[in-house]
């Protein structure tokens, strides 16, 4: 076990619950029985001011959560979501064995889920003229519709490549699917 991992497991940082207003993500595995909960608090410009976690699981899960909660502090929700979308980067950095990569993944899933919760709330509370779909990259419904129409896009990943929408926490991907389906009518 590398020192960073051991240190974060034995002395986990940021254990607990972020202060209100907070957004919480959960992740669990029936395979290994681990459970994780990660909450973030955001400031007015959507930067993470605090991230905390609770978990029952192995060393890798706990260390990963400890490291992630440290790293997302001060980041935008977009950067936090992107960090969560790349468990393999953290797994390599921590020299995690192949059969334990799913524990890093679980920690990242909890982070992404927390950002998703924020995005869902932000989308519903949005009062701009154009409906907001992707809260991570701030992409409106009209923009996505235009991209789909003009470029003849047919999949979510094509939309993401064209305008970033759906490339952060991923919570708007079902909405993008709906827009794609509507464009076929």
């Amino acid at each position, binding site marked *: 076990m590398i020192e960073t991992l051991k240190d974060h*497991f034995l002395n986990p940082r940021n254990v607990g619950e972020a202060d209100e207003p907070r957004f919480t993500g959960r992740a669990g595995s029936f395979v290994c029985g681990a459970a*994780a909960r990660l909450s973030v608090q955001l400031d007015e410009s959507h930067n993470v001011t605090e991230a905390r976690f609770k978990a029952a699981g*192995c*060393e890798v899960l706990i260390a990963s959560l400890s490291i992630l909660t440290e790293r997302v502090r001060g980041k935008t929700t977009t950067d936090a979501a992107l960090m969560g979308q790349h468990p393999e980067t953290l797994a390599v950095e921590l020299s995690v064995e192949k059969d334990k990569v799913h524990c890093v993944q679980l920690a990242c899933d909890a982070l992404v889920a927390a950002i998703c919760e924020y995005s869902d709330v932000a989308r519903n509370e949005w009062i701009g003229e154009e409906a907001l779909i992707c809260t991570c990259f701030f992409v409106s419904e009209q923009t996505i519709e235009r991209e789909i129409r003009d470029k003849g896009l047919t999949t979510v990943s094509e939309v993401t490549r064209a305008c970033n929408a759906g490339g952060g926490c991923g919570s708007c991907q079902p909405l993008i699917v709906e827009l794609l389906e509507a464009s076929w009518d």
Partner: protein
Amino acid sequence: MIYLDNNATTAVAPEVYEAMQPYLSKYFGNPSSPHALGRHMKHAVEDARIEVASLIGAADPKEIVFTSCGSESDNWAIRGVLATRPDKKHVVTTLVEHEAVRNVCHQLEKEGYDVTWLGVDGNGELDLEELRNALRADTALVSIMLANNETGVLFPMREIGHIVRERSGAVFHVDGVQAVGKVPIELKSCNVDLFALSGHKLHAPQGVGALYVRSGVELPSFILGGKQEEGRRAGTLAVPNIVGLGAACSLARIDGDHTLIESLRNQLEDGILEGISNAHLNGIADRTKRLPNTSSISFEHVDGQSILAHLDDKGICVSTGSACHSSSHTASPTLKAMNVPYSMAQGSIRFSVGRYNTEEEIETTLDVLPKIISKLVEMSPTAK
């Protein structure tokens, strides 16, 4: 280091080490050789055979065959019996066997055998009525362990043997690996046909085991080759290890008082159950029905691996019933069979005391453990 993992393996006893040493230096002959050196080796092996036989109460040392480990003994016993009875396709075993039996039986199912898996109750005990009902005319083999490796719960081998003999023509095999050296065993007065044991569980080195084969029980060779062990198991005998096993059996017989081990285990178990509110014992509370050295304890809402890793950091060695690998399910089949709730099975720790533990070590453990558990409970997303 505080070693509380004696069910995993044990330290080689100084007495055993001393007995083995000449066989790792000046006595290097092959016991099959007819010259003086070979004859000396042969004598050493036969002396060891007598020691093993007397520890487990065999009627005749000839009933002991040396093997490489407990798993080989179990595999040989099961496969050997079935080979002699090709017309019988039914096997009875339990859900809580060691992998060396469990996985062979799973394989048998794939090969077309009908396997009856006897369950256990919440205390980890068998229902003997279920055993009675499971026995059939085509039952070739009954394979039931003596002591469970995880919980230490003892199965009534004598009674089971009686039932098997009375109600069927099946051969009765016992995986005795975890029990030998910890509880008195007298095979000659039990209806046991085959009995597996392993050296490293009782202070002999790793890499040696034995199978007791009751006189008259037919068992074809598993490993073919030379005529060693009267043609029953080919392969040059691992004389140093066999001498070690003999010395370990002698030590267990002569110095077989488990009062100290048991009192240390009790001190540990009582201390944990009284001092830690989310701690629950796995297995029957009646200590006369468990091995004297084992405590399996679940800590609700926390993960066994993280407890193990924290104890490891403090130099304390234990084992856990849960392990997280992407490829395998974790909850231990034994705890699952006992219907231990998921939230508890995940946090199971096995403490197994041994001959070299001290009261001071138990006190240190009792000092360190509650702090670890309360830290992990505080971190748990499911604990209130």
